[in-house]
Structures are given as C-alpha cells and as structure tokens.
C-alpha cells in the first residue's frame, strides 16, 4: 500500500511538471492555433539554464534553501526568448498549419545544437542538494519536500491561470481571440500583442517546468525530443487547446508513468501511445476539448 | 412524364426549430422546376435533403424510385444526381480541363484506374472539349481554376456538374453574383447545355422571379417550411396570395 503511495506521488510529481509544459502548449494552441514542437527545446533550455544559474548564484552566496525560487526565477527570465521566437513565427501565421508545424520543428532542430554548443553533449546535473528542504517520512518510504513543493507550485499556477483566464479582463480578451480572431480584431483587440504575450507565457511555462525538474533528474540533449512525445500525449488526451485538459491529461500520463515504473517500465510509452490512439479514434476532442467534425 | 425525384412527408427539425414541415414534392422528367421562397423558408434545407447532405427528421426521399435516405453525395453522383452550389466551389490547383475530367472519370467509371494515362485517354479528352464548348470555356481548358474570373469559376462549377451526365441536376442560385444583363444569357446557356447533355430534369433554386417566370415549367414556393404553391408559371403568377407571400416578401428583402 505504501509502496503504491510512493509511486503515486512520483506520478503526481511527473504530472505536475508535464502540466506546466502542457499548459504552455495549450495556451499557444488555443489562442494562436499553432502546435509548438519546440516546447521540448524550451523545457531542455530551462533545465540546463536552471543548473547553470543556481550554481552561479550559489557561488555568489545564495543560500541553498533558495533553490526552488531561484529555479523558478531562472525559468521566468529565460522566457525572454519568447518574444524573439514569436517574431519568427509571425512570418507563417497566415499559412497552412503544416508549415507552422514545420517551422517549430526547425526550431527544435536548431535548439538541439544550441544546447549542445552551450552545454556540451554530456548530461548535466545540479550540484545543489534539493534535500535541503528535507523529507517527509512515512512508515517505509519518504518523499522529498521539494517534490511536494513543486506539486504545490503547479497547483498554484494552475489555479492562477484559471482565475486569470476566467476572471480578468485580459483573460477574457485572450479567450475572445482564441474563439474568433477576426472578430476580436474588429473589436479593437491588439491581436499582435496578444499573440506575443501568449507565446511568451507559454514559453515561460515550459522553461520553468524544465528548471523545476533538474534537482530530480539530469539535463540531457535527449529530454527535448522525448518531452515533445509526452507533452503531445498530454494535450491529445486532455483535448487540444483546453486548460482543464492540460491538467487532466497530465494526471493521466503521470499516472501511466508511475504505474509502469511499478509494473513494467518498458510498458510506459506503449501504454501512453495506445491511450493516445484510443482517444484520437474514439473521442478526438479529448477529455475536455471541443468536438471535432 | 415520370417522377424522378421526390420527397414524401419530409420534415426537418433543428432542436425545437422546424425548418421543414411535412413537405411532399415530386420532380418530374423533362421539367424545369424552380424552388422559390424567402430566406429562411427552408429552400436550402430542402435542397440539402434532396442531395443527401442531411438526413430528414421524418419522411423519405426517393430518387428513381429508390429510397436514398442516408445516401452520401458520392453515391448520388454515381447514380445520376448532380448539384452545383450557390457559393462557387472549385479545385484551386486543377485546370479547367482537369476539373471537368474529374466528373467524366466518375461517369466513365475510370476512378480506380491507377496505371492508365489520363492525358492519352481520347474518350475523356473529347468529352472535356464538348463540355467546355457548351460553357464557352474551351479557351481556358489549361488554365488553373484559381486564376479564373468569378463568372468563369461559376460556369466551371456548373460545367463540372453537367459533366457527370446526370439525370437530375440541381442548380443552387446559378446566376447569383452575375450581372443582371448577363443573367438571361447564362440561363439560356444552362438550358441549352442541359438539352445537349441529355439532362432530364433540372431543379433551380432562384430568387430572381423574372428568370423563374421565363425559364421554368413549374414553380414550387416554400414559406416557413411548408409548401405554399406547386404550379406552372401562368397559374403561379395569377395567384395573388402566392405573389404576395413570395414576391412581396422578396421585395422587402
């Protein structure tokens, strides 16, 4: 039973990180109708930069307990590349979705080598010990408090995003633009500005997710490409463009991850992809998406 | 004179809204039937039901005596029912000749030929020439469809429907978007084309009552989802109540 709880918590942690990335994807897809394959690159960038930044900060006297906020900070300031990338994507907004997809794919390729150039081909780990936050000890297993903090952070961000989209004026503007771009434009919305903002926030969610994960996992070149696969599963299961979908999808994929570690690790991707295909065939809108004709 | 296409007690509901209420009409061979009525009367719904785009909530549709409930457009095209739309539909990257050829390929049952050369098929080439000539498009046979003028696109849309050699052709506002001075010429072209193409029955959905009066053998008027009148033009235009509902309402639009 407790072994199960241990695995479950692992799955929830995994889900928390995936949710952040998926939320970014959903935001961008919902408003701009672009599926950003480079989300994996942002995740990897966040991871590597998180390591570099915290090592740098620690050298200059940052106390170890500031690890979590430092990582979040690192992820957020990396989001500055968002507007730059968005400028590039702007050139294909009016084109066929295949071209938009290809452009984000080309970014993924380019970032692979950018990562390699800056950080080298070998995996990197963080040298600060995240156990500085301690552990919660159960009868026969323990959970690092760090993991629980990340889960809490993801929940807070989820709630925050939800409130922002539903209750604030700007959130309404975003939802209006997502619903009907030309209508929003006609009503005076600065669609260009909205797109830039949305993409930046989406990028930031990805970089923060990557940064938050590094205490528990190494940063390597592979994680960018592998994440795309998982993130894509999350948004399909949850429903393209839906925020609650990002949450639901992340939980499902996180649980599959957890269960397969317990039962049979090779099964993970297989199970994930069978469910993705099942969803696409039986209910292509996913759990929370809009029905597809 | 036989009935080639008919609806029997057809109704269509969209939720609580009744678009068509117990409509029974019969389209006959050798007749040009016009379907008229103000916007929202149910013309489009009826036409969609006749051409398999939607299913009726109640009632049945028969084509050549067979129940075509649930038949899809491909099926109907094969069986001899063709339709041209109000909004012009073309294949942007295909030439005029290729567009017409697509219909001919269906008609000549060559769809599943994966290895024969279409360019060298003289039966198809001859037919393309014939159809293009009827619609005065022979000079544009090798032009890409997206480069045509709006009027030419319209003609192409109709021409490709005729190329199916259908027994019934349904034209949805064929002269919309065409200047008034040209409308009669286009209608005459369409009728001549129908005759040369051996099309037995033509259904016209039209707003222009002048054209309807001149070129149809029968007029079916719809109002609020019901059949208001089903008469030859002389009787139709002699009935004041009908005129008021259809033409009067049209004038207000």
């Amino acid at each position, binding site marked *: 039973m407790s072994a199960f709880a241990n695995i479950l918590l692992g799955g929830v942690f995994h889900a928390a990180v995936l949710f952040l990335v998926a939320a970014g994807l959903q935001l961008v897809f919902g408003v701009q109708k672009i599926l950003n394959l480079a989300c994996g690159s942002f995740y990897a960038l966040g991871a590597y930069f998180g390591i570099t930044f915290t090592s740098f900060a620690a050298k200059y006297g940052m106390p170890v307990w500031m690890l979590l906020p430092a990582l979040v900070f690192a992820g957020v300031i990396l989001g500055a590349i968002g507007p730059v990338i968005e400028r590039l994507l702007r050139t294909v907004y009016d084109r066929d*979705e*295949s*071209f938009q997809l290809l*452009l984000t*794919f*080309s970014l*993924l*390729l*380019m*970032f*692979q*080598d950018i990562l*390699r*150039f800056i950080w080298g081909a070998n995996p990197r780990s963080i040298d600060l010990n995240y156990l500085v936050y301690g552990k919660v000890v159960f009868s026969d297993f323990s959970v690092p408090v760090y993991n629980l903090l990340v889960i809490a952070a993801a929940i807070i961000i989820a709630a925050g995003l939800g409130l922002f989209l539903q209750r604030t004026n700007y959130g309404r503007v975003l939802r209006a633009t997502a619903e009907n771009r030309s209508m929003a434009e006609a009503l005076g919305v600065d669609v260009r500005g909205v797109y830039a903002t949305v993409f930046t926030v989406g990028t930031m969610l990805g970089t923060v997710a990557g940064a938050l994960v590094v205490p528990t996992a190494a940063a390597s070149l592979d994680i960018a*490409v592998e994440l795309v*696969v998982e993130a*894509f*599963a999350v948004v*399909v299961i949850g429903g*393209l463009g839906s925020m609650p979908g990002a949450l639901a999808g992340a939980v499902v994929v996180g649980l599959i991850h957890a269960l397969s570690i317990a039962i049979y690790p*090779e*099964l993970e991707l*297989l199970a994930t*992809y069978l469910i*993705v*295909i099942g969803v696409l*065939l039986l209910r*292509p809108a996913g759990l929370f998406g809009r029905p*597809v004709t | 004179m036989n009935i080639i296409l008919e609806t029997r007690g057809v109704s269509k509901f969209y939720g609580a809204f009744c678009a068509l209420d117990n409509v029974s009409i019969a389209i006959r061979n050798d007749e040009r039937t016009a379907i008229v009525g103000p916007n929202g009367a149910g013309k489009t719904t009826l036409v969609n039901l006749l*051409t398999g785009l939607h299913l009726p909530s109640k009632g049945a549709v028969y084509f050549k005596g067979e129940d075509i409930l649930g038949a899809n457009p*491909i099926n109907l*095209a*094969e069986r001899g029912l*063709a*339709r041209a*739309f109000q909004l012009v*539909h*073309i*294949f*942007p*990257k*295909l030439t005029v000749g290729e*567009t017409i050829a*697509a*219909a001919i*390929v*269906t008609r000549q049952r*060559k*769809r599943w*030929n*994966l*290895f024969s*050369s*279409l360019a060298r*098929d003289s039966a*198809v080439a001859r037919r393309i020439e014939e159809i293009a000539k009827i619609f005065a498009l022979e000079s544009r046979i090798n032009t890409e469809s997206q480069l045509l003028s709006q009027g030419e696109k319209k003609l192409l*849309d109709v021409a*490709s*429907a005729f190329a*199916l050699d259908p027994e019934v052709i349904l034209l949805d506002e064929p002269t919309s978007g065409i200047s008034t001075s040209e409308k009669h010429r286009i209608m005459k072209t369409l009728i001549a084309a129908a005759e040369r193409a051996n099309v037995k029955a033509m259904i016209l959905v039209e707003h222009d009552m002048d054209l309807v009066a001149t070129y149809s053998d029968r007029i079916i008027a719809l109002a609020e989802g019901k059949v208001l009148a089903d008469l030859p033009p002389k009787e139709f235009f002699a009935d004041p109540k009908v005129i008021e509902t259809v033409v009067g309402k049209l004038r207000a639009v």
Partner: protein
Amino acid sequence: MSSRAAVLLAIFGVLALAVVPWLAPPFYASLLISFFAYAIALLGFNLLFGYGGLLSFGHAMFLGFGAYGTAIVSGVLGIKSFEVALIAVVIGAAIAAAPIGWLCVRYTGIFFGMLTLAFGMLFHSFLFKFYYVTGGDSGMRIPRMNILGLELAQYNKISFLAGPFYYYCLALLVIAGLIMWRIVHSPFGLHLRALRDNPRKAEYLGVRVREFRLVAFVISSVFAAAGGAILGLRIGLADPELVYWTHSGQLVFMTVLGGFTNFFGPILGALAFTLLQDQLQSLTQYWRFVLGAILALLVIGFPTGIAGLIRNYNWRRVAAT
C-alpha cells in the same frame, strides 16, 4: 510539367547518376545509396502529402518496416535474396498500412498528423518491448544479401555498395519513378488531387474521398518500406532510431526542400539533403543547426522548394543572354 520535359529531365538525371561511380570516389557512390532509398520513400510520401494533401508525421514507421523486415528475412530466416526481402516488406507494409491508414484517414490536417505520429511512436515502443526479437536499442543486423541471385562475394562491402548495388538501386529508383508517374497521371491521381483541393466538391463529383486517401496511404507506405529495405542493407543494421518521430520529420523536411508541388521535387530533396548533410557533417559538429536554419528559411521564404525555385527562375532571361 510536360511529359516531354519530364522525360528529358529523367534521362539526364539517370545518366548523371550512372556516371557517378566512374567519376567519384566509392564513398560518394555508397552515400548515394541513401539517396536512392530516401528518393523512393519520398516518391511515395509525396503521393500522400503533395498530391493527397495529408501530412503524416509517422511515415518513418514504414521505413523501419522495410529495414526490420529485411533483417528478419535475411538475419532470422536466412534468406539471402534481396528481391525476396523487397517483396516481403512491400506486402508486409501494405498489410500493416491498411488498418492503420483506415483509422487515420478518417481525419485530416493536424489530427491526421497526430494520429500518424502516435502510430509511429507506438511502433517505436514495440521495437523496444520485443527487444528479444528486435534487439531493442542495438537493433537487428542485416547481413550482405544477394541481388538478382548473385552473391558477388568478390566485392567487399564498399565496392559492392559503390558498384553493383548502386546500379541495382538506380534501376529500382527508375522503376519506382515510372510506377509513381503513372499513378499520379492516372484518373485515380486526378481524383486524389481533386480531393486535396476541395474534398466537399470532390464528393459531389463522385470522388471516393476516404477510400482514395487510404489507397494513397497504403501506396506511400509500400514505397517507404522499399526505401527502408535499401537503407537497411546499406547500413547493415535495422535501428529503432529509424522509426523515431524526428526521422519522420526529416522525411517531411526533405520533401519540402525539394518541393512538394512537383513530381521530381522529392527526388531533388532527397539528393540535396543527403549531400548537404554529408558536407555539413564534415564541416561542423553543429550541422543540425544549419539544417534547422535551412528548413526555417524554406518554410518562410521558399515553400515551393528547389523545384519551385528552378521553375520560377526566369528562363527567358537566361535564354535571351
């Protein structure tokens, strides 16, 4: 493109390719085997994409079919004839593609892309799950095989690739090209292009939209499998990396590079990519970046690819000088 221009271009191309083993070092000839493999695979891929309007992000799966199928035929079953392997993978791919395609062509656009990506990754995970057959990460060996019944043991691997096998593959490419040319210019090909341009109207003209998409899917998978078999024999290994989604992305890249609106585009794209990748790899370890940048440039500025550039080039001005 007129038939006559196409024939001239093809003859020129074949002749140019035929003299490569005589003029260039064996390395280049064996490099071009990759080109032949991808060219055949892309001819099929473009039937689905350029002519059918469906972008598959899982097509590398069928390349993998070809490679792994060949590995099973030669490595596991011990059959040495490459022709048998070709026929086996072609039939196998068609059988697998039929149900997969049937499920996928119910959708278009982004959902089609996602479904095909999912199937591709599913196959990828199968390769790891059944590692006792497929060798998991290490892949499956593909030993030397006989072509046209000839063992040709007197050739070592590289001279085999640069010599007899080179011309064998060139012939396969010509045959594949001829078959695809016929398909594309057939009544079926016309209906395929019609359903790409306007599926709604196509239905009204009697085009069997969903069935024809499925046929295009199956044909493209068959071509991909043939290409995969050649690729596998050249490398000597069937590798799970062949099936990873980024390899599918590479196929799209090559097609767009060459120009997907033109029959010869994919072939040009395969050639350009193969040579480009080789040159870049020897120049810099950051060749992926350069390739990514080229793709970005293509998408933004030159969506019709190399073929489009050639076609739009002002030939009259050249002729006038």
